[in-house]
C-alpha cells in the first residue's frame, strides 16, 4: 500500500564553494504528510527548489510517479502534479485574489487565443467553470469574501493561505509547503494545520512540509527528514527523530541555546 510518489536520489546542489544540499536521498509515499526540518540555512528551501525545477540539481535525480523529472521546466513539473508555496510569499501582488487562483488553473482551461475575442460558447463555459472552482477553493480557506481584493493588500496570514489556495488550483497530487505558518500566531497556526489536514482529505493530497515549529511538525507529520548543513542526519517517525541524539545536537541544541 505504501507506494512511492516522489523520490529524491543523491540530490546535490552546489553554489560555488558551498554544498547547500549534499547527496540527499529520501522518498515520500502517496498520501503521506511528511516533514522536512532543519536549522536555518540547512538547505530545506533549496530541496524544494530542486524538486520543483527552479534550480537544476548539480547531481542526482528526482522521480515523480515513476518518471524522472529532473531537467523539466517548473511549469512542466507543476502540470504533472507537483506544486509548491514559497517561503518568501510570491503572490501576484497587483492581481486580485481570485485572479491569483485563476492563473494557477489556466493550463486547465483549453481554448484558443481567439476564443475569448469571439466569446465562444466553449470559452464562456470553461471560464465559468474556472471561476466556480476558484471560488470553491477560496471558500475552503475563508477567502471567498475577499476575492476581489488586490492580493498584496491582504493581511499577512491570509497571503500565506492564498499561496496554498493558488497551489491547490493547479490540481496537484503533491504539494510542498515552505513554512506555511511562518509569522502566524498560535491560534492561526492551529487553524492552518486543520485546513491542511482537510485539503489533504478532500483532494487526496500528498504533502511535504517545511516547518520551523518542532512541536507542530512532531504533532502532525507521519515521517520526518532532518537536514543539517545540507546533509540528512536523521529520518523516521516523530518518536525516532525526537529521541535522536544527532537531531538534538544539531537542531534542538542550537535552537535552545
Amino acid at each position, binding site marked *: 500500500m505504501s507506494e512511492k510518489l516522489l523520490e529524491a536520489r543523491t540530490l546535490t546542489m552546489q553554489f560555488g564553494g558551498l554544498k547547500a544540499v549534499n547527496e540527499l536521498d529520501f522518498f515520500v509515499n502517496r498520501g503521506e504528510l511528511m516533514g522536512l526540518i532543519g536549522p536555518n540555512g540547512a538547505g530545506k528551501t533549496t530541496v524544494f527548489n530542486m524538486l520543483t525545477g527552479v534550480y537544476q540539481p548539480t547531481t542526482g535525480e528526482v522521480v515523480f510517479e515513476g518518471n524522472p523529472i529532473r531537467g523539466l521546466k517548473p511549469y512542466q513539473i507543476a502540470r504533472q502534479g507537483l506544486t509548491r508555496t514559497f517561503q518568501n510569499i510570491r503572490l*501576484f501582488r497587483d492581481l486580485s485574489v481570485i485572479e491569483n487562483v485563476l492563473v*494557477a488553473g489556466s493550463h486547465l482551461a483549453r481554448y484558443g487565443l481567439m476564443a475569448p475575442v469571439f466569446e465562444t460558447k466553449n470559452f464562456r463555459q470553461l471560464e465559468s467553470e474556472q471561476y466556480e472552482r476558484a471560488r470553491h477553493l477560496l471558500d475552503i480557506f475563508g477567502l471567498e469574501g475577499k476575492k476581489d481584493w488586490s492580493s498584496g493588500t491582504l493581511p499577512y496570514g491570509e497571503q500565506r493561505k492564498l499561496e496554498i489556495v493558488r*497551489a491547490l488550483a493547479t490540481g496537484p497530487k503533491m504539494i510542498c509547503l515552505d513554512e506555511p505558518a511562518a509569522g502566524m500566531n498560535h491560534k492561526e497556526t492551529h487553524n492552518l494545520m486543520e485546513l491542511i489536514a482537510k485539503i489533504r482529505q478532500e483532494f487526496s493530497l500528498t504533502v511535504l512540509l517545511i516547518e520551523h515549529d518542532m512541536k507542530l511538525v512532531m504533532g502532525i507529520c507521519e515521517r520526518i527528514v532532518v537536514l543539517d548543513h545540507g546533509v540528512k542526519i536523521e529520518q523516521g517517525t516523530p518518536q525516532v527523530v525526537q529521541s535522536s541524539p544527532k537531531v538534538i545536537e544539531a537542531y534542538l541544541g542550537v535552537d535552545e541555546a
Partner: protein
Amino acid sequence: MRVPMLTFLGLMILGVIAEFTLDSFVQLMLIYVLINMILGMSLNLVNGFTGQFSLGHAGFMAVGAYVSAYLSTLFPDLTGGMGLVTFPVLALLGGLAAAFAGYLVGLPSLRLRGDYLAIVTLGFGEIIRVTLLNMPAVGGARGFYGIPGPTDWDLGGFVISKFLIGYAQAMFWVVACFFVIWRVVRSAHGRAFLSVREDEIAAEAMGVDTTKAKVRAFVLSSFFAGIAGSIFAHYANYLNPASFGFNRSIDAVIIVVLGGMGSLTGSLVAAVFVTLMPELLRPLQELVGVDVRMVVYSLCLILLMILRPKGLFGSKEVFELVRKYVRKTS
C-alpha cells in the same frame, strides 16, 4: 460581437461629423492619432500587461507598412469603394508579416529573463531601417512612392471622401485592437501574461509556460504594429525608412508609460496627447523663433511623471477611475 460592432458604428458617426467640420490638416492628424492608438495599445500588451520591455515597435510597424504597400502595388487598381474591402485585407497581410517577424525576434530573446528583449528589439528596429534604406525595390533612401490608397469615392454625385474611407479603416482596426487585447487579457491567456509581469518564478511554479506566454503577447503585439504600419502606408501613399526610426519606437513607449502600463484606455488618451502635443506647440515655436517644441514636450512629460508616476491612469482603465470618483463624491 455586438459591443465592438456598435462601438465601431458609433465612432463612424463621429467620423462623418469630422468629415464636415474639420479641415484637411486636422483630419490628417486625426488619422495619425488613430495609428498611434493602435501602436500604443499593442505595445502596452508587451510592455504593460506582460511586463517585458520592447524598444523596437517601429520596426514591426515598418514590416507591416512595407509588406502591405508592396503587395498593393501588385494590384494597382484599388481605388474608390474597392478600398473598403482591399485595405483591411492588405492590413491583415501586413499584420501577419509583422507577426511573423515578431515570432522570429521574440522566440530567442524571450526565452531569457531580464532585459535582453530591449536590446534585441532595439537592434531589430535599426536592422529593419537600414535594410529598407538599401532595398531599391521599395525605393531605398529615396522613399517608396505611388502606394495606392483610399481615394474619393464618387457614387453618382454623392462623394465619400478619402478621409472617411481612411478613417473607417483606421477606426476599424482601433476598435479591433482594443477589443482583442481587452478580451484576451481577461482570459486564461491574458492572465498568464499578467502573471509573467507579476512574478515569473511563481508563474512557472503555477504551471504557466512563461516563454510561450511572452512569445504570444509579443506576436500579437507585433501583428497590430504591422496593421498600424499598413494604415500609415496607404493613407500617406508614401513611405520612407526615416519614418520608422528610433524616435517612433520611443513615441510608442511614451504612449504606454504616459497612459499607464496595463491601461488600454490610458494608451488611447496618451496617443492623442503624444500625437497632438508637438503640433499644438508649433505656434509657440514660431513666436520664439527657436525649436522649443521638443523642450516643452519633454518638460510636460517630466511634469506628468512627477505628478502621476504610474502614468495617467496607472494600471486602471479610465471608467474604473470615473466609477471610483463618482462613488467617492456621492
